[in-house]
């Protein structure tokens, strides 16, 4: 009986089913606070605690989903190619802005992390937080971070940009649609992009482009840091 409850089938059903319930709830309430990922996580954790299944057993059962993160990142290469059409004639501005964002993000995490006295594990977990989740997770692991901390932080990074991003951009006088879309996608990945799509089609498209560019930029910058301090 125990074997069936902790089987791959049961674990996959638990994750996908919880996420599905999350999407139903999201469609009903339409609030960023009931994001399907957050609802799914809470339902999965509650079920695991209730049935007394430990995290290691759960991870073994869901290895297939972890594997799929890889092909998903490769598939982002297609989206990047499609969105490149919006970049023509603006390459310099878009690449420079993405690079500035990557440097500010990593320097910000290191500066504030050292200020708060965080150890290297936590800093490594926070470092890739503006990258899209499937890129942030391997980046965190590779530089000695904890994927679970990264997952939570990446999620809240998305929520922060999506909830207050447009308001902050207004306050700072950033009105250009390309600048706004790029900022939302660079700072808060897919969740920021879904907000950018609400602002306009151009904002949404540029924001989608920023997800892939930021992922590549952070990969290169973190590789550079590893190379320098390693």
């Amino acid at each position, binding site marked *: 009986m125990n074997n069936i409850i902790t089987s791959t089938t049961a674990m996959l059903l638990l*994750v*996908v089913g919880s*996420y599905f319930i999350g999407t139903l709830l999201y469609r009903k309430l339409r609030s960023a606070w009931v994001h*399907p*990922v957050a609802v*799914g*996580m809470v339902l*999965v*954790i509650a079920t695991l605690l209730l049935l007394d299944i430990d*995290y290691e057993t759960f*991870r073994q059962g869901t290895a297939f*989903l972890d594997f799929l993160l*890889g092909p*998903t*990142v*490769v*598939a*982002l*290469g*297609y989206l990047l*190619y*499609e969105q490149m059409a919006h970049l023509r004639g*603006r390459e310099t*501005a878009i690449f420079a*802005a993405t690079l500035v*964002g990557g440097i500010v993000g990593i320097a*910000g995490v290191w500066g*504030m*992390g050292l200020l*708060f006295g*965080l150890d290297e594990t*936590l800093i490594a977990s926070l470092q890739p*937080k*503006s990258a899209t*989740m*499937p890129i942030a997770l*391997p980046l965190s692991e590779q530089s000695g971070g904890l994927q*679970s*901390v990264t*997952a*939570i*932080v*990446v*999620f809240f990074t998305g929520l922060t940009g999506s909830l207050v991003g447009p308001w*902050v*951009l207004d306050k*700072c006088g*950033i009105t*250009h649609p*390309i*600048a706004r879309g790029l*900022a*939302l996608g*660079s*700072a808060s990945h897919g969740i920021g992009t879904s907000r950018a799509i609400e602002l306009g089609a151009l904002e949404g498209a540029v924001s989608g482009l*920023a997800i*892939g560019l930021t*992922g*590549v930029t952070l*990969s290169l910058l973190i590789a550079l840091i590893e190379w320098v301090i390693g």
Partner: protein
Amino acid sequence: MIKGISLILLFYFLGSLISHLIGGFIPGSVCGMLLLFIALGMKIVNPESVRNVSLALTRNMAVLFIPAGVGIMAHYGLIAEHWIAIVAITVVVTLLVLVSVGATAQYLNKRFNNNDSDN
């Protein structure tokens, strides 16, 4: 569809190979993404052949984030101990990135594309 799946796996494999050869500094999946992007740009791969599988994967990718997030169960103590720092860094750095990217892009766009219709 099967052609698309084969191509995605092929690029993932090639990306992992390169990642291994350069000492794992860049994740194999990110290398694979760049390779696919370059292959599409150079017209080595027809975009139509990877379109469906790419959209299927990326549209539903949020479900893949749940297992890693559930790991909070195992590291609850660490997060509970440092939650103020984690929240502060997340909010402040996200907004710093947002404003720095937006300001840089807006400044450069105005400089380079002064005659743009959408400026």
